[in-house]
C-alpha cells in the first residue's frame, strides 16, 4: 500500500522534469489532438474533403501568383508545379502548427486555469491535425510526382527527415510564442506577419538559388531560417535536386535549439502561468 510520494517546494529547480511529466504531456496532447481531429470539419458541407481541398487551394494560389503572374521559373528545366509543390505540404504543416499552436494557451485559458497538465501539451497537440493534413497533401504530391516522373519510392526517407525538421522548428517557434504570450500578447499580434514573412522569405515558391545569390558568400545565413533547410531538403528528397548540403546542419541545429529552449520556456512560465495569463 505504499503509494508514491510527491513533494513540491518553492526551491525546486526550474529544470526538474520527470519522465511521468513527459508521459503526461504526451497523453494530454493526444487527447487534445483527438478533439481537434473530431471537431476539424464539424458543421462543414464538404467535411473531410477539405483535407484534400485545402492543399489543392494552396497549390492553386502559389501557381497563379508565382508562376502565372510573377513568372518564376523552376531551375534545371523542371516543371514549375513539380518544383514548387514539393515543399508545400511541409510548409502547410508548419503553418498550421504556428497559427494554431502559438495562441493555444491563450485560447484555452478556461481549461489551463482550472486543471494542471504540462503546458507543452497544448501547442504539441496541434501537430496532430497538422500531421494528418501533411499526410494527405504528401500523398497527393506523391501521386503527382509518380504520375509525371515515374519515380515512386525514391528519396522518401529524406522527405520524412526534412518533414521532421519542419515540424520541430515549427513546434519550437510555437512554444516560444505561446510562452511569451502568457505575459505579452505582442507575439500573437505579430503572428500573422511572422507566418506570412516566413512564407515569403523561404524559397518555397521560388528557387533557393535566387535567394542564395542575393547573399553572395554568406549564403549560409539563409539556413538560419530552418524552413529554408526544409524547402531545400524537400526538393532534394522528392526531385533529387542538389546534394546533402552541410548548411542543412545549421537548419537542424536551429530547429533543435528552438525546440529545446521552447520547451524550457514553457516550463518556466508554467509556474506562474495562471497568475499572468
Amino acid at each position: 500500500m505504499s503509494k508514491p510520494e510527491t513533494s513540491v517546494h518553492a526551491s525546486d529547480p526550474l529544470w526538474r522534469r520527470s519522465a511521468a511529466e513527459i508521459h503526461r504531456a504526451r497523453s494530454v496532447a493526444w487527447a487534445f489532438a483527438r478533439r481537434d481531429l473530431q471537431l476539424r470539419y464539424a458543421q462543414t458541407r464538404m467535411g473531410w474533403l477539405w483535407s484534400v481541398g485545402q492543399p489543392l487551394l494552396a497549390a492553386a494560389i502559389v501557381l497563379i501568383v508565382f508562376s502565372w503572374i510573377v513568372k518564376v521559373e523552376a531551375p534545371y528545366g523542371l516543371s514549375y508545379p513539380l518544383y514548387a509543390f514539393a515543399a508545400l505540404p511541409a510548409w502547410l504543416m508548419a503553418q498550421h502548427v504556428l497559427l494554431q499552436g502559438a495562441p493555444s494557451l491563450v485560447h484555452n485559458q478556461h481549461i489551463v486555469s482550472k486543471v494542471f497538465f504540462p503546458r507543452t501539451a497544448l501547442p504539441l497537440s496541434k501537430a496532430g491535425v497538422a500531421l494528418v493534413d501533411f499526410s494527405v497533401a504528401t500523398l497527393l504530391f506523391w501521386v503527382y510526382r509518380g504520375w509525371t516522373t515515374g519515380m515512386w519510392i525514391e528519396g522518401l526517407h529524406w522527405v520524412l527527415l526534412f518533414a521532421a525538421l519542419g515540424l520541430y522548428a515549427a513546434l519550437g517557434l510555437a512554444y516560444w510564442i505561446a510562452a511569451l504570450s502568457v505575459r505579452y500578447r505582442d507575439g500573437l499580434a505579430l503572428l500573422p506577419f511572422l507566418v506570412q514573412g516566413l512564407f515569403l522569405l523561404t524559397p518555397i515558391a521560388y528557387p533557393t538559388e535566387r535567394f542564395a545569390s542575393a547573399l553572395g558568400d554568406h549564403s549560409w545565413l539563409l539556413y538560419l531560417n530552418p524552413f529554408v533547410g526544409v524547402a531545400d531538403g524537400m526538393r532534394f528528397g522528392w526531385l533529387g535536386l542538389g546534394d546533402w548540403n552541410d548548411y542543412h546542419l545549421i537548419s537542424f541545429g536551429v530547429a533543435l535549439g528552438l525546440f529545446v529552449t521552447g520547451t524550457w520556456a514553457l516550463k518556466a512560465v508554467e509556474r506562474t502561468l495562471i497568475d499572468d495569463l
Partner: protein
Amino acid sequence: MSLPSHLALQTQGLAKRYFGRGSFKGTHYWALKPLDLEVAAGSALGLMGPNGAGKSTLLKLLSGLTHPSAGGYQYRGQMTSLLEVGTGFHPDLSGRENVYLSGALHGMSRKEMAQRMEAIQEFAGLHDQYMDHPIKHYSSGMKVRLGFSVAAHLHADILVVDEVLAVGDASFQAKCLQSMEAQMSEKGRTVLFVSHNLYALQSLCPQSLWLDRGEKVRYGTSADLVTDYLQQAHGPKEAFASGHGLASGSGKLRLTDMEWMSGPPQTGVANTLRIAYEGEGDQHDVDIRLNVHGNDGRFVAPIAMHAHGFAPAVLPASGEVYVHFEAMPFMEGWYTVQARATERGVVAYEHKNVWGFQVASGGFLAQAPAYTSGKNGVHIRQDWRLEP
C-alpha cells in the same frame, strides 16, 4: 523530508506572494501566508473563509497550477483537483467523447475511462442516445450532472474540490455529497473541500480550516467553526437601532433589543428570538408585530404575537419575550425587520428599520438536503404523499 504514514498531505510554511503590476509596481502581498497543515489519510478537511481569504490560492498551489513562493508540501498517491465541473468540455463533442477528454486532462487514460463509462452514465442519469449527442444540445443541468459524474469517477487518493457543488439542483447536490462521503468511507479517499455552502461543508467535513486574508484563523471542529464564522463573517452584528430617532409611538413601551439566542440562524435549524422591551407601569394587552422584509425590501413574513395566540393580559414594565422557531423558515440571505408594538390598542412603538439578521443556508428540515436557491423567502411546512 518524508511524509508520516498516517498523513495524506502535509504543508510546511506553504505561501504564495504576488507582485503588483502597473501602478502597483514594486508592491507585493501575500495571498497565502506561511501555512502548516496536516491532513490525515481518509479524512475530509473543509476550507472556509470570505472571498480573498486564500482558499483558492491554497487549492491552486496544491493542484500545481501555481508554484509556491515559499515552503512546500508533500502528498501520497494521486491528487486530483476539481476546480470546476466539466473542465475541458467542448460543446461540439458528444457526451462520451467529452468524458474521455475530461478524463485525459485529469490524467486518466481512454481505457480507464471506458471501464467507468457505464457507471458515469448511470450516475449522471443520461440515456445511451444522449451520450452520443453533442453536449451543446444538453440542458445545463445535464452538462453539470455529466461533469460531476466524471469527477466522481476519477481515480484519486486525494480529491481537492472547489465549490463545485454550488451548481446543479438540490437532489443532485445531495447525490454528489453522498457520493463523496461514500468515496471517503469506502475507498479511503482524502478530501479537501471548499464551499460557501456551510451546510454541505459541515455535513461532509468533521474538521475545518478557517482562513482570512491569507492567514489561518482557526483550525478545528467544523460545527464550532461554522458558528463562529457566521457570526464574524457577516460583518459587525447589525445593531439594534432603538436609539435612532426614527421610532415613533406613544413610548409607553419601547423595544430595546432583539437577538437570535442560538447564534446566527440557519435555515431549518431551531432558534429562539429574544425581544427585550422597557417602559413605564404595567403593560396591558401588549401586541408585538415584526414584519420581516427580504433583501430587496419585499415583505416576506410576519412574526406576530397575538396572531399566534400569545396574548398575556399584563406584562411587567420592562422585560423580555421569546419566540421559538422549531425550524428556521427563512431561506439563506439578509432580512430587515420593521417593528410595531401596541399597548391597549395604542401604538406605543413603531420603527421602520429596527434590526437586521442574516440567515445561513441549510436544509429546511433537519434531514433534508440544503436548499440554496439564493432566493429570499420562507419555507412553508408541507407534507408530500402518494395518497391524499
